[in-house]
């Protein structure tokens, strides 16, 4: 907080001085480009942070510009009301687009296509709906910012817009330094993992898209006051490409990236356009393509990397031990799957499989490849929908519920290939898991940079040495360490039953023994029910109370390790011998 203030105050001061002493022409350019920078930052927020490439960020921007133009040409002193209406309109229209795009989980490129198409269609609507939009010529003579019956002079409008833009951009920086920033990066890097931690990722994406829309709306209102007119081109292809170019060039993964990109390209355009207009536009196209091919991350992150600085501020969240009451009285029915049918096309992955986990057990699920083990684990954690049967958690029906609701009820999952958030540090990964206890986006913007982590997770971190590597980016960990980190993440939040898919894959024999000992300890110390998919018989002998065998999508056998090892059917499916 103090450090961001140290950066913010001089920037604001410099912007204020620049605006007042550069003269109306330059100051006017500065305010114009900064209002566009706010638009680019809104794209940086949804694209760079949440990973949603929106090519139609002009939709909220343009709608807000038209709205502000209509309101203030009729009532010049209503600028502030128009600004609020613009933010609301931008947020609303983006929320509608987001619901369409994310609720059905459209592919990312389709979302890009949809947003661009919506924007281009609005351009045509604006051209033809003359009564409201003024047709091709648009709306002109939009007054300057005004209040209480008078409007600002040009100089003071430039000053006001400049200051407002800097404050808004600083607000975005502040917002993203909260836990929500880490959650958005998590969704960008690995949405499945974040959802399995208990975050409603679709809801968060709709939220961030709406916030981006509100920002773009405010940018549109400032822009139209500054330019004094709005025409259908505000939704058009040219501006759409430009916004993406500025954001891309500056670097979308840091908030200042889009600002730098916008100012750089626009001041260069303004300087070169008189002499060199056509070639300059051609050059922007070439720069665009070259940037995609050679510097896809953008200038600011690339420069930071060359200078050896981290692109994300590595202010580590403070990890604290969560004080927990004594383990809840074991509930008999923890998790129950009844007569599950699952097919992929004509292939029946699971047929009538029933499985119940009760409080005091550590169960292993085994079976030959293709038996349906991972599919069953997916269904037990809400990752996949199934055609028949029912799933219940702690006696409540959860059939058809999304994965994040399973996770919030306490179902923690570790995937087969380790799923961690590569670009976040070890500590941030753990904090992300712990913050899932208050997963609404608004709470995540207010929550402190402190995570209360379960004792079990801290124990895993301590015993594996990860506790000393809090600052390491998770992507730089070894395979085994990623496995440990993911197990710790699964434990860090509300974990009432743990599902592990091949936790020892890729580990050495010694490491496997360590995992076995640790799991046994967690199981006894916290009365934690655990279900493990495994192949390694030595490991299974070391941990399992009970073993369930699946073969070809059906339940084959169930019993203690000794019983299973003596079972003729089981030997038959594993060794391929009959009877």
């Amino acid at each position, binding site marked *: 907080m103090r450090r961001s203030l140290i950066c913010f105050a001089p920037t604001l001061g410099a912007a204020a001085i620049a605006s007042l002493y550069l003269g109306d022409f330059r100051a006017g350019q500065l305010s114009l480009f900064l209002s566009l920078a706010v638009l680019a930052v809104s794209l940086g927020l949804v694209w760079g942070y949440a990973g949603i490439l929106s090519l139609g960020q002009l939709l909220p921007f343009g709608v807000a510009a038209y709205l502000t133009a209509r309101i203030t040409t009729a009532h010049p002193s209503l600028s502030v009301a128009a600004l609020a209406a613009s933010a609301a309109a931008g947020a609303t229209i983006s929320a509608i687009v987001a619901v369409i795009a994310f609720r059905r989980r459209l592919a990312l490129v*389709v979302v890009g296509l*949809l947003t661009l198409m919506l924007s281009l269609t609005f351009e045509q609507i604006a051209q033809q*709906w003359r009564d409201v939009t003024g047709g091709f010529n648009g709306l002109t003579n939009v007054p300057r910012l005004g209040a209480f019956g008078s409007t600002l002079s040009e100089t003071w409008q430039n000053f006001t817009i400049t200051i407002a833009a800097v404050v808004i951009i600083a607000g975005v920086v502040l917002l993203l330094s909260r836990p929500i920033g880490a959650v958005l990066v998590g969704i960008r890097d690995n949405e499945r993992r974040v959802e399995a931690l208990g975050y409603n990722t679709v809801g968060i994406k709709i939220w961030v898209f709406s916030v981006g829309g509100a920002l773009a709306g405010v940018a549109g209102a400032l822009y139209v006051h500054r330019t004094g007119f709005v025409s259908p081109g505000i939704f058009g292809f040219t501006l759409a*490409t430009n916004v993406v170019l500025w954001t891309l060039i500056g670097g979308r993964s840091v908030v200042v990236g889009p600002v730098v990109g916008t100012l750089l390209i626009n001041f260069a355009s303004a300087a070169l356009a008189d002499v060199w207009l056509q070639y300059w536009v*051609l050059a922007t*196209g070439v720069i665009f*393509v070259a940037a995609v091919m050679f510097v896809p991350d953008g200038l600011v992150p690339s420069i930071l990397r060359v200078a050896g600085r981290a692109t994300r501020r590595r202010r580590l969240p403070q990890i604290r031990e969560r004080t927990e009451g004594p383990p809840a009285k074991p509930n008999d029915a923890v998790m129950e799957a009844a007569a599950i049918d699952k097919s992929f096309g004509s292939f029946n992955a699971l047929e009538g499989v029933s499985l119940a986990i009760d409080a005091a057990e550590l169960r292993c699920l085994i079976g030959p490849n293709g038996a349906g083990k991972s599919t069953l684990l997916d269904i037990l954690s809400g990752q996949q929908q199934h055609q028949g049967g029912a799933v219940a958690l702690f006696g409540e029906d959860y059939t058809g519920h999304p994965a994040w609701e399973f996770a919030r009820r306490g179902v923690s999952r570790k995937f087969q290939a380790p799923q961690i958030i590569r670009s976040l540090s070890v500590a941030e990964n753990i904090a992300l898991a712990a913050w899932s206890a208050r997963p609404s986006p608004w709470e995540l913007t207010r929550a402190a940079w402190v995570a209360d982590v379960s004792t079990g997770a801290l124990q895993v971190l301590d015993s594996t040495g990860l506790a000393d590597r809090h600052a390491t980016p998770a992507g730089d960990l070894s395979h085994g360490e990623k496995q440990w980190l993911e197990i710790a993440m699964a434990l860090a939040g509300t974990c009432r039953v743990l599902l592990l898919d091949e936790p020892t894959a890729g580990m050495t024999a010694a490491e496997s023994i360590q995992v076995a000992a640790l799991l046994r300890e967690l199981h006894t110390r916290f009365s934690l029910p655990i279900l493990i998919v495994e192949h390694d018989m030595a490991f299974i002998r070391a941990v399992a109370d009970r073993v369930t065998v699946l073969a070809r999508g059906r339940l084959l056998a169930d019993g203690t390790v000794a019983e299973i090892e003596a079972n003729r059917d089981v030997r038959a499916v594993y060794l391929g011998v009959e009877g």
Partner: protein
Amino acid sequence: MSRTTDTTWRRRLNALTLELLNGLSLFATLAIVALGLGITFGLMGVINLAHGEFIMVGAYVAFVVHEAGWSHWVSVPLAAGVLFVLGAVIEVLLIRRIYRKPELTILATFGLSIVLRQLAELVFSKDFQSAPNPVPGATEALGVLFPTYRYILVAVALGTVVMTLLGFTRSKFGLVVRAIVADRDLAESAGIRTGVTNVLAFGLGAASAGVAGALVAPLGAVEPNLGLSYLPSAFLVVIVGGFSRLWGVLVGALVVAVVQTTLIHYYDAVWALIASLVLAVVMLQMRRSSVAGATA
């Protein structure tokens, strides 16, 4: 009495016929305009935002052919050839390097569209040029007069679309392309040269845009921004028709043409646009699996 009724009915019937012909011509235009997008996205998972500019280049080919004093009909195959080469070059220089990152292909073609538009402006200026209609005048058929050129446009456009689609669905090349769509790595390890196939697919997508450009050139002005006016409808057709099946282009073009023609007739162009948007959104909501599957 009976005589007036008779003429009223005849007038209504003629108006209806005219609307049907307008709709048919829109359908054919949409189909040929969207064909290339459908090929590059459906087969390669690449959203080509420079598709409109490929159409624009095709239209300029028609303009140049006219300036050179040749017949307009030369421009259709010539535009296809020019654009095939352009598409192939772009595939090799750009698209090939970023296949596995769909986001980057969107961005690269976005930048490419600026480059192509600006090059057109540098070479031909911003002025509106024209490639005059080779067969001015109208033909009387079914009781109404309809521009002769549009009849030919419908025939050539639909002919090209159907031939291309048959080529992709019935030939060995089509089979190879579909194998790559299904699983690029598997196709490669089965000995399919995905590189060559991609060049051909992207080139053919571009060539179809060239045909579209040469065909629509006489309908209006030839100018650097020509492609931009066709791009939204082309996207619409692809979204409505679905991404995974190539024949979706025809279905999408038909649905969009019917909706737009009907609404323009009864209301106006704004409502036609809004209805098209709603249609696209409804289609996206209904067809979750195929949409997600297209780029999975």
